[in-house]
């Protein structure tokens, strides 16, 4: 759906070239929710804006839905942008227009729909985001979550195939964030919309994304299915993001483990294995004793997973290890 071929972007600031995005190739599939995570200034915002050319690339090719975006002339670019909805961290609603007029704006700008049809479409969109009774209010009268819903309705007005989300939940409280993310997931499911979102919170990625790319210093340092990146982060930046999301206190754990005897393992269970009665069986079969040092179980996009840190004492350690691996458990020996 969206393809980047060696796309890069350099800015000239005070006579110095600053590389906001190093040559990057990337592919987002139709119908998926693709997350880009990075710290502020990492280049994720630039990358997102290159998709609808709010930022002009310095080089490379961008192809969206078969259209070579980088080759579009101004008029073609304007038509293309109508097929790409966008929502923003600070909503960017027009304070001088009512909710209904904000949502109607992309349709009026396109100038292809008669007023009656626009009214009907706006009513339908407001129903979808649950704001029908607020149609005649001004943005200033709404809460943050409601404003973002208006933003979503506005972005969907022209029936786009792609939705770009620029830190869409960063200005919202946790509860509202959950509601907005749920709405995005719903839209992705029901309309088959391809969503690209950028965020600095791993939690947002975990809740809605299918795949994720981690970006740092203008380059993608790691990418893959969310479950994999989440359970087996490789790049230090990714590791930090995951630890933040899971509130893992690495130093605290290390201190605790110092007092524990035996070998220490980290087990990662995924899918059906997650709930299998493995530990007891293996312990009995191999004579090892185990204690659970830390653990977490959750679901990402419908896939259950678990991660346990165990201390093993006595028995046949090697055999236990083999049996765990045979049962499709990812095992890392920490000590």
């Amino acid at each position, binding site marked *: 759906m969206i393809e980047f071929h060696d796309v890069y972007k350099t800015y000239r600031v005070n006579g110095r070239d600053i590389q906001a995005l190093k040559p990057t190739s990337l592919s987002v599939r139709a119908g998926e929710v693709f997350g880009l995570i990075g710290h502020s200034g990492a280049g994720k915002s630039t990358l997102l804006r290159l998709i609808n050319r709010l930022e002009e690339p310095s080089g490379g090719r961008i192809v969206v839905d078969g259209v070579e975006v980088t080759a579009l002339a101004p008029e073609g670019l*304007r*038509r293309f942008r109508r097929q*790409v909805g*966008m929502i923003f961290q600070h909503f*960017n609603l027009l*304070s*001088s227009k009512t909710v209904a007029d904000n949502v109607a704006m992309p349709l009026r*700008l396109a100038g292809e729909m008669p007023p009656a049809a626009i009214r009907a479409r706006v009513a339908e969109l407001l129903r979808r985001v649950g704001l029908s009774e607020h149609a005649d209010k001004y943005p*200033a009268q709404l809460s943050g979550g409601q404003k973002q819903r208006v933003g979503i309705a506005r972005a969907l007005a022209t029936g786009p195939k792609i939705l770009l989300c620029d830190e869409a939940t960063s200005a919202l409280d946790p509860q509202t964030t959950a509601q907005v993310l749920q709405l995005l997931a719903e839209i992705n499911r029901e309309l088959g919309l391809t969503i690209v979102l950028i965020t600095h919170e791993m939690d947002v990625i975990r809740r809605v994304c299918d795949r994720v790319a981690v970006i740092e210093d203008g380059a993608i340092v790691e990418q893959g299915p969310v479950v994999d990146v989440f359970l087996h982060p490789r790049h230090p930046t990714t590791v930090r993001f995951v630890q933040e999301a899971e509130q893992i206190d690495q130093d605290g754990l290390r201190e605790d483990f110092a007092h524990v005897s035996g070998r220490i393992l980290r087990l990662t269970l995924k899918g059906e294995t997650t709930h299998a009665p493995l530990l007891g069986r293996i312990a009995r079969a191999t004579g090892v004793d185990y204690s659970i040092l830390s653990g977490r179980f959750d679901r990402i996009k419908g896939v259950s997973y678990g991660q346990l840190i165990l201390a093993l004492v006595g028995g046949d350690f090697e055999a236990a290890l083999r049996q765990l691996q045979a049962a499709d458990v990812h095992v890392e020996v920490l000590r």
Partner: protein
Amino acid sequence: MFRNVDWYDIWLATLDTLLMLFGSLLFTVLIGLPLGVLLFLTGPRQLLQNRAIYGVLSLVVNVLRSLPFIILLIVMIPLTVLLTGTSLGVAGAIPPLVAGAAPFFARLVETALREVDRGIIEATQAMGASTRQIIWNALLPEARPGIIAAITVTAITLVSYTAMAGVVGAGGLGDLAIRYGYQRFQTDVMVVTVVLLLCLVQILQVVGDRLVIHFSRK
């Protein structure tokens, strides 16, 4: 009390002042608003960023603004005659009034437009809007309270300019104040004209403030 005051003259002078004020305000807005929009758009890091155009416009605006209005009145006389056929009366006053106020108003418009959140421009661009659509559908509606405030300030500035225009034979309350109140020592005429000008300014400010509040949705 008020024995020198010819109320009919005062009435005529008030009409002249109002004519000059609203006539020049109309042209000031008609010229200054597009000029302000152009200043904004061609400014640094804006949609139509253009160093040369911005530089030239900025220079013209600054030159006209730095000229004392009284000098502008006199310098403008040949041009005024060319435009209106006379340098006297209400018609003769309007060109210099506009030349004095339009650059001032354009700067205020530019500032009001800069107050519009860049995110709103970006969102409108992302909808596929052309530059013209961004101006009409996003920038101007969002800057409306600021532009109304700018019109108010400009109108009040024009009131004092119309008083000065009296010097070159424009008529109006200022003319009356200078010829009778100052040159003939008729203090009562001076008091009446000053009070009338004060009322005019007060009314403009109150109406302007009301409109700003009415159009502010923040």
